């Protein structure tokens, strides 16, 4: 009875899971040398696997950390680019070019005096009565000249009595700027 206990105790000691049931031990005191070495080998194996697993997961964690920091850096850079783009847009919007036009490139009309013009991007709340656009500054100016002549002709074809207050004012301004070439002849 005492020996059984000993064997049981020995087995319990060797196998913490307590699943071994066979009596393969010769002495009955504990696991044999072979059993021990087999278990030790098994433990080494599992240790190796564990180490391998651990080192893999470390590499994975490192990769994740690295990719996480790269993503953070990318997001920071994106924000910086966005900020720079906005600042550039604001600068471009506020940029204006002062120039003069000396003629209207027309056989029929001429300017009474050189007209200062400002080329600039317009915001929502700014309204230009005359508008010229083009791919180049000279293109935009040429369009503006045509617009001036068109407006001149159009407003002068309508009697003042049929013009609204605002259009009357536009007519007055355009007539100050432009005259027909043959008017002085």
């Amino acid at each position, binding site marked *: 009875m005492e020996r059984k206990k000993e064997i049981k105790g020995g087995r319990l000691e060797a196998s913490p899971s307590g699943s071994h049931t066979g009596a393969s031990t010769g002495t009955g005191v504990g696991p044999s040398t072979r059993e021990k070495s087999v278990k030790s080998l098994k433990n080494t194996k599992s240790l190796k696997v564990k180490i391998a697993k651990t080192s893999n997961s470390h590499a994975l964690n490192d990769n994740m950390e690295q990719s996480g920091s790269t993503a953070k850096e990318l997001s920071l850079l994106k924000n910086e680019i966005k900020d720079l783009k906005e600042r550039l847009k604001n600068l471009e919007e506020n940029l204006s070019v002062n120039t003069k036009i000396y003629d209207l490139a027309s056989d029929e009309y001429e300017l009474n005096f050189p007209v200062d013009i400002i080329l600039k991007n317009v915001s929502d709340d700014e309204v230009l009565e005359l*508008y010229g*656009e083009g791919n180049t500054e000279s293109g935009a100016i040429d369009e503006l000249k045509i617009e001036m002549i*068109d407006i001149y002709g159009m407003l002068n074809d309508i009697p003042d009595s*049929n*013009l609204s207050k605002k*259009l009357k004012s536009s007519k007055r301004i355009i007539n100050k700027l432009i005259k027909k070439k043959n008017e002085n002849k």
Partner: protein
Amino acid sequence: MKINDFTEKQIREAIIGKIKPLVPTGCKHQKGVVYLEGMAVATITIPNSHKRVMHHNKSKHIAAALKLECREFNDLVKCTLTGPKYYKILKTKIANE
């Protein structure tokens, strides 16, 4: 609110079809005069019938010439703002000028 992307043709059709401005001859660019109760109240440039998208600044200029807010201009081109409704808006705006 911004003016939507419209082709020159869309804007032209909305102006000619709904607002029906008087188109004077002799202009290099096609122009229109908008009359309200016999009084010329606005001069506008009528775009060509090109299918290219109208430059936003130019759309804004046309909208301003028509005395329309960006939203109203979008409605005009998108068909929800009719000619009579436009003239109603115009009347209010001219009275407030």
